[in-house]
């Protein structure tokens, strides 16, 4: 098959009917199209999860508010958490990994294109299934209703006794099904990175993006499996008379916690490593310098991968594990701050002595550095077990992990959207709208999540649908809610920018950022099968070598 003859089938071409186009997208096994499907799917759920968050915050804007009932509130935070983790952040990161890894390592597709499509559709089905509970889960009240057990669904709240009807089953099955998709994609990423690199690209010469996603995929395989096992055990409990977590028949609530967090903690690194991957590509290009300390960055990534498997019970400091276990999980948790810190220092050193250009992607990455620093430090506070006895399960924890997930992951993700938009769409985005989005989001983010730490310190637990006046929480909650509207405005500008630029944006050339990795040598957008000729590389920055034949990288690496 001649690769030149396969052009990007443009939706604007008009030669295909809508049904034909739809058929092409549904049956596609192309890594770029699947990547885009993942991304669009995640954006839809981002809007849904965002609306849920907004309703939650409106309810908490003042004490004794009754915007929604307690039952609805509990469903909202369960759906919000589950949606954001499993159906927004994970798919969108898989989407970028899918789209970019083959391009970056000079491959024509992922290792297993059909597994890739299968995985996407499993994930997609999981999300739809979760939301089908809203109409399909017959519950106590006769009508359908969504799960209300919280995103970590502690036993025995999930047992038949306390969770009547089927809402918990929808939650369980949705995660089970999308979990298969995640494992499929993870296997695919590992295989692709290990086996599909172009000639010359040794492991030590592949972009950090590929390294970080490789470790991420390894963690997915290790972490999602116990979650899947636990979900099956829960189903056995609920329908086959098992007693794993059925405390009334001698089961253990604590075992569920262990199962969940041995998934849950590595999961947070599954989410953050791809964010590191974006930062590790964007910061060098806009500082005009190679990444500082590449081997150390790789080492730190692998170290994080290993250590993150041994810290799960820091989510259980208040469970009464005994002094010895608590002490162990303190040291392992704090240990993970070291490689994480090393990464921050290396990004700083990359900027040091460079010529920093404040394009939208870079702005988001700089804000990421600042926010991730704080998130790591509040993490260390929570890692000091006695401090966690106070802060755990309070709004301080909520602020901590939103600092990581929004301030860290979402920010680099927005950076990634702007950075690779020209490659994916062939159009330039609007820099003005991009900056507007950035500033709205920065303001909103800090209003919401900076001030959210304080009610936690003042004793406000999480997951309460209302609170008493006179505890000193009112003003902070008001500010927190106001911030949400800035963030929502930012998201609207962002979506508007994507849509407007897709149809009206200027044409982008192949390498708008004067960047150095292989995806920028392909067409914008790249044709099916990416490269007519498989490239050969000699260094980590093949395009730098091309642009500076007099001073190539491979002389120094």
């Amino acid at each position, binding site marked *: 098959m001649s690769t030149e003859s396969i052009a990007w089938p443009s939706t604007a071409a008009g030669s295909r009917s809508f049904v034909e186009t739809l058929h092409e997208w549904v049956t596609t096994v192309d890594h770029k199209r699947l990547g885009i499907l993942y991304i669009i799917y995640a954006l839809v759920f981002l809007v849904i999860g965002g609306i849920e968050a907004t309703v939650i915050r409106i309810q908490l804007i003042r004490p004794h508010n009754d915007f929604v009932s*307690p039952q609805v509130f*509990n469903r909202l935070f369960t759906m919000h958490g589950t949606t954001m983790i499993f159906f927004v952040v994970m798919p969108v990161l898989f989407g970028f990994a899918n789209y970019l890894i083959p391009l970056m390592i000079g491959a024509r597709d992922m290792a297993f294109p059909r597994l890739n499509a299968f995985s996407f559709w499993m994930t997609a089905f999981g999300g739809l299934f979760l939301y089908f509970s809203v109409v399909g889960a017959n519950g106590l009240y006769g009508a359908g209703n969504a799960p209300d057990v919280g995103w970590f669904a502690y036993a*025995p*709240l999930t047992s038949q006794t*306390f969770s009547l009807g089927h809402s918990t089953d929808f939650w369980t099955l949705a995660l089970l099904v999308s979990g298969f998709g995640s494992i499929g994609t993870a296997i695919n990423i590992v295989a692709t990175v290990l086996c599909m690199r172009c000639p010359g690209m040794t492991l030590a010469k592949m972009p950090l993006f590929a390294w970080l996603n490789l470790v991420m995929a390894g963690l997915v395989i290790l972490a999602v499996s116990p979650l899947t096992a636990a979900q099956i055990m829960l189903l056995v409990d609920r329908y086959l008379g098992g007693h794993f977590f059925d*405390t009334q028949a*001698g089961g*253990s*609530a*604590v075992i569920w916690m262990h199962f969940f967090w041995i998934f849950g903690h590595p999961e947070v690194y599954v989410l953050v490593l791809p964010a590191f991957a974006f930062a590790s590509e964007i910061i060098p290009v806009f500082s*005009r*310098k190679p990444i500082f*300390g*590449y*081997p*150390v960055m790789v080492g730190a990534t692998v170290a994080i991968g290993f250590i993150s498997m041994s810290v799960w019970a820091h989510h259980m400091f*208040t*469970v*009464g594990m*005994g*002094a010895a276990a*608590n*002490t162990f999980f*303190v040291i392992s948790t*704090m240990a993970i*701050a*070291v490689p994480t810190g*090393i990464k921050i*220092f*290396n990004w*700083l*050193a990359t*900027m040091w*002595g*460079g*010529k*920093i250009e404040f394009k939208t992607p870079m702005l988001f990455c*700089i804000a990421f550095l*600042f926010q991730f*620093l704080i998130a790591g430090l509040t993490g260390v*506070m929570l890692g*000091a077990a*006695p*401090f*966690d*006895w*106070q802060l755990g*399960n*309070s709004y301080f924890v909520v602020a901590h992990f939103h600092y990581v997930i929004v301030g860290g992951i979402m920010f680099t993700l927005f950076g990634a959207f702007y950075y690779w938009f020209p490659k994916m769409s062939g159009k330039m985005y609007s820099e003005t709208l991009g900056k507007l989005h950035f500033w709205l989001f920065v303001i909103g983010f800090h209003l919401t999540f*900076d001030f959210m730490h*304080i009610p936690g*310190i*003042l*004793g406000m*637990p*999480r997951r309460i649908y209302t*609170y008493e006046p006179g505890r000193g929480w009112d003003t902070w909650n008001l*500010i927190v809610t106001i911030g949400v509207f800035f963030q929502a405005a930012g998201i609207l500008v962002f979506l508007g920018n994507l849509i407007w630029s897709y149809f009206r944006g200027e044409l982008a050339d192949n390498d708008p950022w004067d960047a150095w990795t292989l995806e920028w040598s392909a067409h914008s957008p790249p044709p099916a099968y990416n490269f007519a000729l498989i490239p050969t590389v000699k260094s980590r920055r093949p395009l730098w070598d091309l642009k*500076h034949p007099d*001073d190539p990288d491979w002389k120094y690496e």
Partner: protein
Amino acid sequence: MQLRGSNQWHFLGSQILVCVCCTAAAFADPASPFSPTNIFAPASTPAKSIFGLSLFVLAVTGAIFLVVFTLLLYSVVKFRKRKNDDGREPPQVYGSNQVELAWTVIPVLIVVALFMATARVIASVQKTARPDNAIEVVAIGHQFWWEYRYPGLGVVTANELHVPVSDDNQSSPTFIKLFSADTDHSFWIPRLAGKTDLIPNHPNSMWIDPHEAGIYLGQCAQYCGTQHAKMLLRVYVQPRADFDRWIQEQRQPATVSAASQGQRIFETTACINCHTVAGTVANGRFGPDLTHLMSRDTIAAGAAKNTPENLRQWILNPDTIKPGSLMPAMQLSGQDLEALTTYLETLR
């Protein structure tokens, strides 16, 4: 909560720390800068040990923040691309082993220091043995209220925990065993101690030794179902004599009631399946013990003040006060409701 001499420093400390978190905005709330549930206003040894550790952790993390933030700010300003840029690439630097070594070793040392301080506090709080004079309480979490039993003293009550105050000469700590009757809960009085979960089939314990009399607030800190939000905690710390008197009163069975009409209704409706009134036939255990209901300031785990109107409202339809609570509305006639409330009001 009022300020007392020895506590002023803690309040001051907490004020400064809150400022660290939010600088100027901390002053934007002059109406209630302090909170009855402020973790930085400890009033009992476990909370104080934690507070000491948290100051250390905050100081260390604060210092790290300042250093790294300054570096970030400096590089963003100093190394920004200038207007008159010559268009050439800056010097390409690939790394430096010495620098990497430095910023690996220093964080390792910091982590070791943090770890040792933390391990000490874990041991001091978790390994304290129960002295002989300690009061023992069994706390049982229910959806969505608290049951308290004083084994040995023969007292059973609900939602409002009474403990003696410790003074400088004599500490009289209270050791609390934590059980759950249904789902997970968590016992959290921020000014007295960190939280400990109540988990079915997994008994836990904790201790407090409050140094100041007063009422300490808190609430359930582990999601336990619909009314998790209104599962409030109140701890009454009393001088020893007052505490002993309270115990004496609570040990008594219910006084034989003059309002026999109401008692009959209580004993012939489902009330007795769920509630105990010691000295009568009512011995249900699904809901709070009502023997000394009127000795409590609040009903429904702090959700409402214990006034005749609220009581009536509660019995008529608990959902209006606490939607989703596990007490059913009993569909009583106005007359019966009146008699029943009158009866309950005799349970002092």
